[in-house]
């Protein structure tokens, strides 16, 4: 151990174990995490070349190898990986925050959408095979021409009562599905979001299950054109893809019908609440708040540890070079960000808890807090990701020249984190959604939910 960093650890004024337990979910959870880390790190199968020196194709293949290994080895972990949270932690340790082609979109969006929007019969048909990895799915919403503005999506799904089928079609170049992770080359199923038409009337965006690749030889299904969208700022292990649908016909049962339905004769039965279809996005936004907290914490860890071992300049001629952590200007760059990482850690706890309780209530037919959840998740997603994005760059700059090297880990942390500001809702648009709710509460004079009650209190 470098003596300078050891000295820093010797000077702390609090009980390390107490804080480590708090940040890692309590004693039992922390023990479990330690075991998972130890299992993954001692498994030589998960070793591989340093990605900094790899080409995109090599990276893609290496992460596919690790992702498939993870799925195969999961069973052997027994009780250690009990729920989604454990699996997420296991996944993080294997992939090191890079994409898991068999997990991220599949478990992050495909499976939750089935859980939230499919009927019992549809769950039996697709959810169990999805969990058993008999099918691999993704969530195809964003198009080349439209992202955050969902009503602008152009893909159509026309219902034909004669054959009891939907015809799903990409009518223009800009309507081609563009960006969904693992869509290009990996997945064989996709939940496609399209404008539903029955009896000539458009009923807005609905979710449809579409088989996109042949289950025997993995070739694209008839009427479907698939591909990778090319290299990106980061996330180059992922085959973010495009999908063009040419009058593809799927049975009526392939529309996810838990909330709204199309009957055999084409009668449309609306959902009790209009925005239930967007539940998956609210969930993902809640988890992005958590990712923002951890990404900033990781950047601070790198910059603060390095600042403790790096020595630079002399305050007075002949004096030893001080650790850069001792300079007030360095502290002024890093310590507010360290404090921010803690503030975000507690915010994400609140956010994930809130998502869980509102989701449970929605399951029981209580939609009263949905608007509040949508508003808070939109606002916090934008607020935390903007701060973390700029914060990682401050941490990189604080490492001087070495921060520019991929060896610092900070350039890659930045390029991996930065799409959080634009995916799952572009940040400015999300802030405007949050603001609409606040302005509505202010204008209508209603107290609204707890988090906005202060607007009407006296200054």
């Amino acid at each position, binding site marked *: 151990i*470098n003596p300078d*960093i050891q000295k*820093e*650890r010797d000077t*702390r*004024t*609090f009980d*390390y174990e107490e*804080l*480590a337990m*708090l*940040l890692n979910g309590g004693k039992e959870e*922390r023990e479990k995490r330690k075991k998972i880390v130890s299992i993954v790190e001692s498994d030589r199968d998960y070793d591989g070349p*340093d990605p900094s020196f790899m080409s995109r194709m090599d990276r893609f293949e290496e992460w596919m190898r690790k992702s498939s290994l993870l799925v195969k080895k999961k069973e052997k972990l027994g009780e250690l990986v009990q729920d989604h949270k454990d699996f997420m932690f296991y996944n*993080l*340790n294997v992939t*090191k925050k890079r994409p898991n082609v068999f997990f991220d979109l599949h478990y992050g969006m495909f499976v939750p959408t089935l859980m939230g929007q499919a009927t019992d019969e549809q769950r039996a048909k697709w959810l169990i095979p999805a969990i058993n990895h008999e099918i691999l799915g993704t969530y195809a919403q964003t198009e080349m021409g439209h992202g955050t503005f969902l009503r602008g999506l152009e893909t159509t799904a026309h219902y034909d009562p004669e054959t009891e089928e939907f015809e799903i079609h990409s009518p223009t170049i800009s309507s081609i599905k563009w960006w969904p992770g693992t869509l290009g080359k990996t997945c064989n199923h996709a939940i496609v979001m399209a404008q539903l038409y029955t009896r000539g009337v458009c009923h807005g965006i609905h979710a449809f299950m579409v088989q996109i690749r042949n289950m025997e030889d993995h070739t694209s299904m008839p009427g479907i054109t698939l591909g990778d969208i090319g290299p990106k700022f980061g996330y180059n292990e992922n085959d973010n893809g495009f999908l063009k649908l040419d009058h593809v016909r799927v049975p009526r049962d392939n529309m996810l019908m838990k909330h709204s339905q199309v009957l055999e004769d084409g009668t449309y039965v609306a959902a009790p609440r209009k925005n239930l279809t967007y539940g998956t996005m609210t969930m993902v936004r809640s988890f992005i708040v958590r990712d923002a907290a951890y990404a900033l914490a*990781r950047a*601070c*860890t790198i*910059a*603060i*540890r390095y600042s*403790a*071992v790096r020595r630079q300049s002399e305050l007075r001629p002949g004096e030893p070079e001080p650790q850069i*952590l*001792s300079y007030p200007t360095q*502290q*002024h760059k*890093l*310590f*507010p960000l360290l*404090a*921010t990482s*803690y*503030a*975000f850690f*507690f*915010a994400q706890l609140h956010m994930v808890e809130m998502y869980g309780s509102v989701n449970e209530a929605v399951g029981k037919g209580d939609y009263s807090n949905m608007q509040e959840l949508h508003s808070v998740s939109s606002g*916090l997603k*934008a*607020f935390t990701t903007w701060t973390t994005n700029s914060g990682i760059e401050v941490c990189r700059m604080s490492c001087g020249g070495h921060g520019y*090297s991929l*060896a*610092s*880990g900070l350039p*890659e942390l930045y390029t991996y984190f930065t799409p959080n500001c634009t995916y799952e809702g572009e940040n*400015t648009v999300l*802030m*405007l959604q949050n*603001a*609409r709710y*606040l*302005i509505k509460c*202010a*204008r209508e004079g209603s107290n609204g939910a707890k*988090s906005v009650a*202060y*607007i009407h209190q006296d*200054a």
Partner: protein
Amino acid sequence: PQMRQYVDFNDLDTICKLYEQRARGLVKFAANKVEEEVRNGEDLVGALNKVSVHSVRAANAHCHYFVVKNFVDEIKTLELSPGLRSVLMDLARLYALDGLSKNSGEFMEEGLLSGKDVKQCHQLVVELLPKIRPNAVSLVDSYEFSDKILMSVLGRYDGNVYPNLLEWAMKSELNKTDVIPAYEKHIRPLLKRHQMSKL
């Protein structure tokens, strides 16, 4: 001015109140602007669009207030040893005061802080830094990110940065041979031409 005589930057509840009032002020400002546009004949959609720059500031202030208050409330509610509570309180104060300092314009706009208050706030941030310093490394260690997750030579737990930086660089493709193939193709002919022209 009446408000300012009660400002105590050592009191986290007071700081939370300042955030609350900034958010309320900016939300009401945006809402009033919408009303004004509607009164001038704009429909609601048009009014919201015209006011959108103010709206984003309002939403940002609301989220900032939410995060500050949630941080303070959590520390108050959690069962913590006095040592840890004090460290987390310092972090919460630093987060809140740094936010006041960096967004001082909006707090001044709402009449919540004077120039003198803002100067005091900058000073308090500077004074908090040496209080955080003895715990800084342990505060990041407590997240317990393994070296394999961080994937950073600079952020290694053992702090042995320089030998590992050299080891890392040796993996570079360009270091596989001492003389790179491009030497024969591009460098050597250039050098020859230069030498010949000198002759």
